[in-house]
C-alpha cells in the first residue's frame, strides 16, 4: 500500500447518517462523496500531473488554429521530408512538406473530439437505459440483456469497422460508430449501481414521501452513481481515442486530409526505414495521451474506491 492509498478513518464512509432529514440525504451524500474523492485524488501526484498534462493538451487542441504555425494541409514543397529543427518546421515535415507540428496539433483535435464525443454519446444512452433497466426492469431490462448477449459475441472493433463501412468516414460517423460499439458496458454498470442504490434508506424515504419514480431516479439514484460512472468514463475516453486512432490506422477513420494521430502513424509506417521522424511524433503523442488518461483514471478510481483496498 502506498501513501496515497491510505484513507483517513474520518473519510471512511459509514452508514448513512440517520439523523439527517431523509429527503436531502441523497443529494448531500453525493456532494460529500466528491469532496472526499478530491481530497484523496490530490495526494496522487502521478494522477495530478496527468490531469495537468491532459488539460494542457486539450487547451492546445481547442485553440489549434491560433497556435499551429501552419495549416494542416499547407504544403511546403521546398522542405519536403525535413528533419526536426529545420528552420520554420520545429518537428520537421512529411512527404508533401506539411508541417508535422501543425498536423500533430490538429490531430489532437480529432482525437479529443472523437474521444469525448463518443464517450458522451455512449454515456447518455447508457444512463437512460441503465436507469430504466435498473429502476423499472421490464422491457428496458430485457432489451439491455438481449443487446448485451449479442455484443459479447461481437468483437467490438469488428462492429466499429462495420459501422464505419455503413455510416461513412465523417467525424460524426466515427463518433457514432465508436459510441454504438461501447455503450453497453456502461449501461450495465448504471443498472448495477441503480439496483444497489435502490436498497438504500434515502431512496426508501423518498418513495415513502411519494416522490415520483423519475424524480427518485434522477435526483437520488443518479447523483450517487456518478463516482463509478466517472471512473468508467475516465477509462472509456482513452478507449475511444484508441479506437479512433486504430480505425484511422486501418484507413477507415476520419476522412483525410483532416489529420488524425492514427492517420499520421499510417503515413509514417510506409517511410519508417528511410524517414522514421514522420512516425515518431504521432506515436509518442498518442502514447502520452493514453498513459496520462490511464494514470488519471487510476487516480479517480482510487479516489472513489470506498473500500480503500487494492490488490
Amino acid at each position, binding site marked *: 500500500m502506498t501513501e496515497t492509498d491510505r484513507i483517513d478513518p474520518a473519510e471512511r464512509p459509514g452508514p448513512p447518517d440517520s439523523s439527517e432529514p431523509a429527503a436531502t440525504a441523497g443529494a448531500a451524500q453525493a456532494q460529500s462523496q466528491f469532496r472526499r474523492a478530491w481530497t484523496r485524488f490530490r495526494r496522487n501526484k502521478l494522477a495530478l500531473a496527468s490531469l495537468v498534462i491532459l488539460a494542457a493538451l486539450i487547451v492546445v487542441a481547442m485553440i489549434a488554429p491560433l497556435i499551429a504555425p501552419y495549416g494542416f494541409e499547407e504544403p511546403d514543397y521546398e522542405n519536403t521530408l525535413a528533419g526536426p529543427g529545420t528552420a520554420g518546421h520545429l518537428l520537421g515535415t512529411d512527404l508533401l512538406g506539411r508541417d508535422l507540428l501543425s498536423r500533430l496539433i490538429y490531430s489532437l483535435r480529432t482525437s479529443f473530439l472523437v474521444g469525448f464525443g463518443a464517450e458522451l454519446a455512449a454515456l447518455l444512452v447508457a444512463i437512460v437505459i441503465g436507469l430504466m433497466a435498473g429502476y423499472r426492469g421490464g422491457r428496458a431490462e430485457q432489451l439491455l440483456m438481449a443487446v448485451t448477449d449479442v455484443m459479447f459475441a461481437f*468483437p467490438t472493433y*469488428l462492429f466499429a469497422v*462495420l459501422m464505419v463501412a455503413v455510416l461513412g468516414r465523417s467525424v460524426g460517423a466515427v463518433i457514432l460508430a465508436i459510441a454504438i460499439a461501447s455503450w453497453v458496458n456502461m449501461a450495465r454498470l448504471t443498472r448495477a449501481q441503480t439496483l444497489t442504490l435502490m436498497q438504500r434508506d434515502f431512496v426508501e424515504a423518498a418513495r415513502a414521501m411519494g416522490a415520483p419514480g423519475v424524480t427518485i431516479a434522477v435526483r437520488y439514484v443518479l447523483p450517487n452513481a456518478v463516482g463509478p460512472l466517472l471512473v468508467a468514463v475516465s477509462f472509456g475516453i482513452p478507449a475511444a481515442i484508441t479506437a479512433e486512432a486504430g480505425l484511422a490506422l486501418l484507413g*477507415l477513420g476520419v476522412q483525410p486530409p483532416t489529420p488524425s494521430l492514427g492517420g499520421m502513424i499510417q503515413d509514417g*509506417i510506409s517511410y*519508417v*526505414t528511410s524517414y522514421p521522424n514522420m512516425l515518431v511524433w504521432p*506515436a509518442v503523442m*498518442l502514447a502520452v495521451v493514453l498513459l496520462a488518461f490511464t494514470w488519471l483514471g487510476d487516480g479517480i478510481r482510487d479516489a472513489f474506491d470506498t473500500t480503500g483496498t487494492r*490488490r
Partner: protein
Amino acid sequence: MNLAVFAVRRVARLVLSLIAVSIIAFGLLQLAPGSFADISNLAAEESSTVTAEMQQRYGDEVPVWQQYLGFMKGALTWDMGPSYKYTGQNVEDIIATSFPVSATLAVVAVIIALCIAIPVGVFSALRQNTPWDYGSMFAVTIWHSLPPYLVGTFLMLLLSGTWHVLPSRGWSGPENMIMPVIALALGPAAVMTRYVRSSVLETLREEYVTAAFAKGGARRLVIRRYVLRNSLIPLVTVAGPVLANLMTGTVFIEWIFGIPGLGQYFTDAAASRDMPLLMGTTLFFAVILMVTNLVVDLLYGFLDPRIRATAGAR
C-alpha cells in the same frame, strides 16, 4: 444439474448469438452505400465475371432475406462464393489460407505472454510491496494502456527505423514474426501478470498454505506444490478476454506489418466494400470468439467442482 446439460444450454445460446450476429452484420452491410450484390466499384472486365457468378448464386432482383439465406446456406456448407476484390478466389479459400497465419501469430503471442506473466506475476506477489513489485506493476500499467498497434509502431521505429536490424513489413521468414508477436503478446501479458499476482497473493493467505509452512515445509516446496498449483488454474478464466484482445490485435498488427492474415483481409474487405469477404471474415471471427469462450467456460467448469455444482443455477 450436471455438466452435460450446462454444455447443451451454452451451445444453444451460442447458436442463437451467432444467428443474431449474422443478421446484424448482414443488415448493416445492406444499409451500406453499395449493397451486398453491388459491385459498381470493380473494373468492367472483372465485374462481368463476378456478376455472372453472383447472378447464378443469388439470381437477379432477389429480396434481401433470400440473399441472407443464400449467404448463410453458403457459409454453412463452406461455399461462400467469389470475393469481389480478389477475383478468381473464393471467400472460403481466402479464409482457409489466411487463418493459419493469424492463428500462428496468436498462439506464439500467448506462449510469450505466459512466459512473461507467470514468472513476473509470481515474483511480484512473493515480493509484495518491494521496489521489484512496484516496478513491474508500473511496467504492466504501461503495457496495459498502450494498444498493440502502438507497441508495434514503437518496435518498428526502434528495430527497423533506427537500428535497421529487422525488416519492417512482409511475411517471408521467421524474422518477420519477431516484432508482431511481441507487440501482440505485451497486452495479454499485462492482463495475465496482474491476474497471477493477485491470485498468488490470495492463495498465500489461505489456511492450507499457513498450515504447510507451520508444518515446517520448505518455502520453495510449499510455493511450488501448494501456492502455484492452486493459483494458476484460475488463469484459464482470462483466456476469453485475452483471446478477444488478441483477435483485435491481429487485425491491426497484420495491417501495419503487412502480414497476409485473416485480419488483413477483413480490413481490406471493409475498405473496398467486398461484401462477401467482409461477411465471411466477420462471421468467422465471431465463431472463433464464441467457440473459444464456450471451451473456456466448459474447461473451467471441469476444473472447478464448485462451478460444476452451481452450473444449473445460472
